[in-house]
C-alpha cells in the first residue's frame, strides 16, 4: 500500500494549522479591539469561507494562483515557482477553509478576557508583549487549543478546494480525501475502505482530544 496520501495529508494539515494558528490569533486580537461597526464588517469577511462551498473558495484560489492569473503568473515569472497543481497548493486551500474556525474560537476567548488583568499588568509595569504571551495567552489557552485542533481536523478533511487547486496526481498531490474519491470512482472499493478507516481513526482521535480539553475547562 502506498502511504503517500497519509503523509501528504498530515503535512498539509500540520503546516496549514501552524499558519492558521498565528494568522487566526492575530486577526482575532486586532478585530476584538476595533469599534463595533467595523468589527462587524471584518467579522463577516473573515468568517465567509466557513459558510461558502469549498468549491467556491477553490474557484477564487484558482483565479488568483493559477499559472496565468494575477499572483500565480507573477510568482512563476519572478521565482519560477508554480502555485497550483503541486502538493503545497493544498496548503492554500486548507488555510483558507480552516482559518475561520481558528479566528472565531480565538476571538471568543479574547472577548471573554477580563480587561482588568491586562490593565493590572500594564500598571504593574509589564510590557505589552510579555502581557500577551504570559497572561492573555495562558488565560485563553483552552479556547485557542480547541480552535487549533478544530482547524487541523478541518484541514485534514478538506476536499473541495483542494481538488481544484492541487488536483489528484498519485504520489504527487494525492491526499486522503482526494484518494478516497478517486479509488471509489475507479471501482477500487476495498482500498477506498482502508483509507476511510484510516481517516475515521484520525478524526476520532482529534475529536476525543477536543473533548478532553473542553472538559479541562471545568
Amino acid at each position, binding site marked *: 500500500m502506498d502511504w503517500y496520501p497519509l503523509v501528504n495529508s498530515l503535512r498539509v494539515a500540520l503546516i496549514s494549522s501552524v499558519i492558521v494558528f498565528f494568522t487566526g490569533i492575530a486577526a482575532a486580537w486586532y478585530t476584538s479591539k476595533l469599534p463595533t461597526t467595523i468589527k462587524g464588517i471584518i467579522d463577516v469577511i473573515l468568517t465567509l469561507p466557513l459558510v461558502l462551498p469549498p468549491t467556491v473558495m477553490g474557484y477564487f484560489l484558482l483565479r488568483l494562483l493559477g499559472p496565468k492569473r494575477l499572483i500565480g503568473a507573477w510568482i512563476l515569472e519572478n521565482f519560477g515557482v508554480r502555485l497550483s497543481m503541486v502538493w503545497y497548493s493544498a496548503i492554500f486551500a486548507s488555510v483558507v477553509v480552516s482559518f475561520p474556525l481558528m479566528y472565531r474560537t480565538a476571538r471568543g476567548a479574547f472577548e471573554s478576557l*477580563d480587561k*482588568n*488583568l491586562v*490593565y*493590572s*499588568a*500594564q*500598571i*504593574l*509595569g*509589564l*510590557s505589552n508583549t510579555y502581557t500577551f504571551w504570559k*497572561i492573555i495567552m*495562558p*488565560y485563553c*489557552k483552552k479556547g485557542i487549543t480547541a480552535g487549533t485542533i478544530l482547524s487541523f481536523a478541518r484541514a485534514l478533511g478538506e476536499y473541495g478546494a483542494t481538488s481544484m487547486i492541487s488536483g489528484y496526481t498519485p504520489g504527487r498531490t494525492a491526499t486522503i480525501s482526494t484518494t478516497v474519491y478517486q479509488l471509489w470512482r475507479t471501482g477500487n472499493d476495498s482500498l477506498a475502505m482502508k483509507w476511510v478507516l484510516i481517516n475515521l481513526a484520525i478524526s476520532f482521535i482529534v475529536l476525543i482530544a477536543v473533548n478532553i480539553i473542553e472538559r479541562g475547562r471545568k
Partner: protein
Amino acid sequence: MSLYLDIHKHFRGFKLDVRLDVGNDTLAILGASGSGKSLTLGCVSGIIKPDEGKIILNDKTIFDSKNNINLPPQQRHTGLMFQNYALFPNMTVRENLCISQKSNAAEIDDMLSKFGLERVKDLYPSQISGGQQQRTALARMLLSRPAILMLDEPFSALDSHLRFQMERELLDVFHNFDGTSILVSHNRDEAFRLCERLAIFNNGHIEVEGKKSEVFANPQTRTAAILTGCKNISRAERTGKGKFFATDWGIELQCNKLDDAVKFIGIRMHSITNEIHNENSFECRVAQVIENPFSFTVMLIPKNARENLRPIGWEIEKSLWHKVKNETVNVCLPPESLLLLRD
C-alpha cells in the same frame, strides 16, 4: 508627595470634569455608581486617556494634553487595586507578587509573612479565600513600589466580618505608605474610618472636597448629605430672616445662617433630640417604629402638618425610647444641627 489633576473627558454621553489637588493624605472618593470615580482612577493610572487636561504625580507630569505628554501605564508607577483584584489566574500567589520585578526575594518573603500568605504562597488565586486574594492584591501592588496607592471599592467582595479585619489591615498599609492614597468607596463609614480627606463625586464632577470632619459637619450639597448618610432631607423655602419652610415636612424652622443658594435642609437622624428648646420644637405623631440592634428609628410626622408629608426619622437609644415612648412625642431639631444644602 502629591497628586494634582485637572481632566475632562466625554465618554458615552457622560461628561467627566474633575479637578483635584491632594497632598500626602489619604483621600476617600465617595459617589454613586456611575459618578466617574473609577474613570478618574483609570485616567491617573493611564489605562484611560482623558480628552484634555493635566495630571501631575509627585511633581512629575504624567499627562498633559497641551504639551502632548501621555506616559503609558508602565511608566507612571501607580498602584491600582481593582474591585475584583485582577490576580493573574495562571500564576501562584508568589508568582503574582514577583511579577513587577522591583523587589528582591527577601522583600517578597517579608511581604508574604506580613500578610499571612506563607501557607498559600504556592496556591493559585482560585484556590484561596477572598481575604487572602485581597491581601495578595495589596502585597502585589506594594511590591511594585508605586508612587500612589489607589483602591477601587476594595471591600465590595468581602462579607462584613472579613471587611472589618481587612479595613484594619488597610489602615496599617495607608499609615506606612509614604505618598498619596486614594480609596474609592460608596460606604461612608469605611471612607470615614480609613481616610483623612473626602471628595464627593456627583455626575462626573467633584461637588465637595475637604477634611472628612468638615464634610460630615457641613456637607454643603444635597448629594454630599445623602452620601455622608443624612436620611432626612427636605426642600426648603425661605420665609424670613433666618427662617424657612421645610416643604416636605410641613414645618417652619429657625436657623442661624441662611443664604439664597440653600435649596434643601437636612438633619441627621441622631441629631434630633427630645430636649425641648424654644426654637424648632414640635409635637409629632409616631408613624412607625423600626427596631435596630442597638437603637430605634422612630418615624415622626409633625402634629399640625398635613398628612401626606414625608416623615422625619429619629434615631434614639433603646433605653431612652422606653422612657419617652408614646403616641405623640415632643422633639427638637436644634438649629446648629441643621444642614443647609445647595442642589
